[in-house]
């Protein structure tokens, strides 16, 4: 009787709409929050922050964003890298143009700007569907990268086209720039990730989420029962891009500190984030986090095992790492095409039935 919903009755629709209807889940969630906010910041060091936690949180935000678009609204996008670049360059321009305004506002504005750009590139989705759309979003990816590379205004005319994040503080603590401490970096990303996950959850459990999913599952039927495809798709693009833009802003300002568009926001980024949501689970908030964790941790882990543990030459390790990552992706897809989130749900379903097999 460890994991049961029996006896866990809901007496109001409000309770029924809860995010974690099962008590045990709820407790686990609160426990995770306590650890994330009150324990980790005190023990984190530079390595853990920079190699694991900060990228994990930032990518989780990007994955949430892409999941809204792809997982919920069914519009496959390979332009994530380009949209992250929009966020990064927007925050850079804002930071350097209005140094006195809080960085938090800049990051949110950067998200907003990305949302507008995202909507613009989302327009073709009204005509173009499926893989055609996916490939079409690559147009956004390549065009945006080219634009930021080409127009010197975006990088404040620096000689090499690189952008550098100047130091900005919140409550006196540096959150960008070289002097940022590991806990500060971690906390700002955590707060953004937490709030945005909550927003994503709200959006997807309400009517906008249903409209998105309806469009995803059967767009024609959705339109016939009253979903306006224009607003549904564009709102998905806007919301998704907002998240992705915030992630891009954080990636540049908080995590990397300096960036060059082709390198930091190239097409590989787009694929990476897509991987995260598919491995994690399309249309799942938890999946976005799980996928981000998987894709951030796996290479680090493999590298440590292969090079650190087994002492293989780095190049061999790197090649084998590629093979293992590729193999694992395939393996997970075969084991559960709906991702880690579904795997987790199934495990719980089995637990619920335990000890009976069915």
């Amino acid at each position: 009787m460890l994991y049961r919903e029996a006896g866990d009755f809901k007496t109001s629709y409000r309770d029924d709409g809860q995010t974690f209807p099962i008590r045990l889940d709820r407790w686990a969630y609160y426990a995770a929050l306590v650890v994330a906010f009150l324990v980790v910041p005190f023990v984190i060091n530079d390595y853990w922050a920079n190699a694991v936690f900060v990228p994990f949180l930032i990518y989780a935000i990007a994955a949430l964003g892409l999941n809204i678009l792809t997982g919920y609204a069914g519009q496959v996008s390979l332009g994530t890298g380009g949209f992250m670049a929009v966020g990064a360059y927007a925050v850079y321009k804002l930071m350097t143009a209005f140094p006195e305004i809080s960085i938090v506002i800049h990051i949110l504005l950067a998200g907003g700007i990305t949302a507008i750009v995202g909507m613009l590139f989302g327009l073709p989705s009204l005509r173009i569907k499926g893989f055609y759309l996916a490939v079409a979003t690559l147009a956004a990816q390549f065009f945006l990268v080219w634009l930021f590379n080409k127009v010197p205004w975006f990088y404040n005319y620096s000689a090499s086209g690189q952008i550098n994040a100047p130091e900005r503080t919140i409550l006196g603590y540096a959150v960008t720039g070289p002097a940022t401490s590991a806990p500060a970096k971690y906390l700002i990303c955590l707060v953004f990730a937490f709030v945005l996950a909550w927003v994503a959850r709200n959006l997807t459990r309400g009517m906008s989420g249903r409209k998105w999913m309806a469009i995803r599952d059967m767009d024609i039927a959705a339109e016939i029962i009253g979903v306006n495809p224009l607003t549904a798709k564009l709102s998905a693009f806007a919301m998704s891009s907002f998240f992705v833009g915030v992630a891009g802003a954080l990636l540049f300002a908080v995590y990397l500190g300096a960036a060059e568009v082709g390198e930091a926001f190239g097409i590989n980024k787009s694929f990476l984030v897509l991987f995260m949501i598919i491995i994690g689970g399309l249309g799942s908030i938890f999946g976005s986090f799980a996928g981000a964790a998987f894709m951030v941790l796996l290479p680090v882990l493999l590298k440590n095992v292969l090079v650190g543990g087994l002492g293989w030459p780095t190049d061999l390790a790197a090649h084998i790492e590629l093979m293992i990552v590729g193999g694992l992706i395939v393996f997970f897809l075969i084991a559960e095409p709906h991702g880690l989130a579904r795997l987790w749900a199934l495990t719980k379903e089995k637990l619920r039935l335990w000890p009976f097999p069915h």
Partner: protein
Amino acid sequence: DLIVPNLSYRTGAYGANGTQYADGFNDYFTLLNERDGGIGGEMVQVPECETAYNTEKGVECYEATKDTGALIYNPLSTGITYQLIPKVSVDKKVLYTPGYGRTSAKNGKVFEWVFNAPANYWDGASVAVKYLLDENGGDLNGKKIALVYHNSAYGKEPIRTLQGLAEKHGFTLSEIPIDAPGQEQKSQWLQIRRDQPDYVIMYGWGVMNQAAIQEASNIRFPMENFIGIWWSGSEVDVTPVGAKADGYKALTFHGVGMDYPVYDDLQEFVIEPGNASQGGEHVGSVLYSRGLYAALVISEAIRKAQDIAGASQIDAEQLRNGFEQLEITPERLTELGLPDFGPEIKMSCDNHGGSGMARLQQWDAEAKAWNLITEFTEPDQEIIAPLIAEDSEAYAKESGITPRDC
């Protein structure tokens, strides 16, 4: 022990190039360890970490190694360098980026922890133009020079220098960017075929180099008039093109080939006992030599630091002092078994970039060898110095750094 991490890349689009460099870097330290028992009695450890030329992996490598007592980083990537510049000033690590990275880091007043001797991108551009001036009896008026560049931070570096030089010497400059990876350059080379520039200067990396040299030969552009920066001048760039690459020129800031006494030692202490990095496949190649040269400069700086500190075990701050007072004279090079291998280096608190001297080499396709064709040449500091001052000041302002007094 002294810890000198090797942030290398042996995979991905630039893996073929990165591998050779990393091998040279490793082997030189192995040589010092095996032959001399390290530097000043301290063994050198060179933990390697794969970056795949990717900034995020580079950062991860940096973070993974920095708390193990690492002294110095040499990531062989302009992107990663930009990433690390702000970090090293906080973590107090030395960043050494010979021939790449941020050019204005030459200004030691602003970039306390970064060194890029003996030469940087702008020096390279200037030396190339100087060479062309020499070829043309000191006059480039009315000549047309095309710059074919990797469309990234790295490739864009020489543009301003060349623009300045164009103004000064009266040649016209056309800029032709090529997006990574750059296998397909037909339209760019058709443009060159149409415009018929007198010379082409190239700032490329990876497959872009070969493709460009191939296309140049396709349109029968005279190879003698085609000059690459040092990152466009290794064997892997020319061999795929075969005989038609004969005569192609490239800059370099170190010697080539294996005609140096140090190779006897390498043979004896490293290669034969089977200690060579990854089987010693690339010994003696251009990029191998460059990795070796970087290791040499670092080891000399360590020696200097040990001298100053009076101890064999040093920290990064002491190493920085070592770098700032580093002097590598031709005599010293000869002592090290590498006579005339690199230019004389003399650094100071405000000059972290050395003299900027470089020379030219030319490819002999039949012999499959690079031959040096000029002596070390000084760049035109008149053009470069103000640019460096301007760019480093802009950085200082943007990042709120107060330049040191030197």
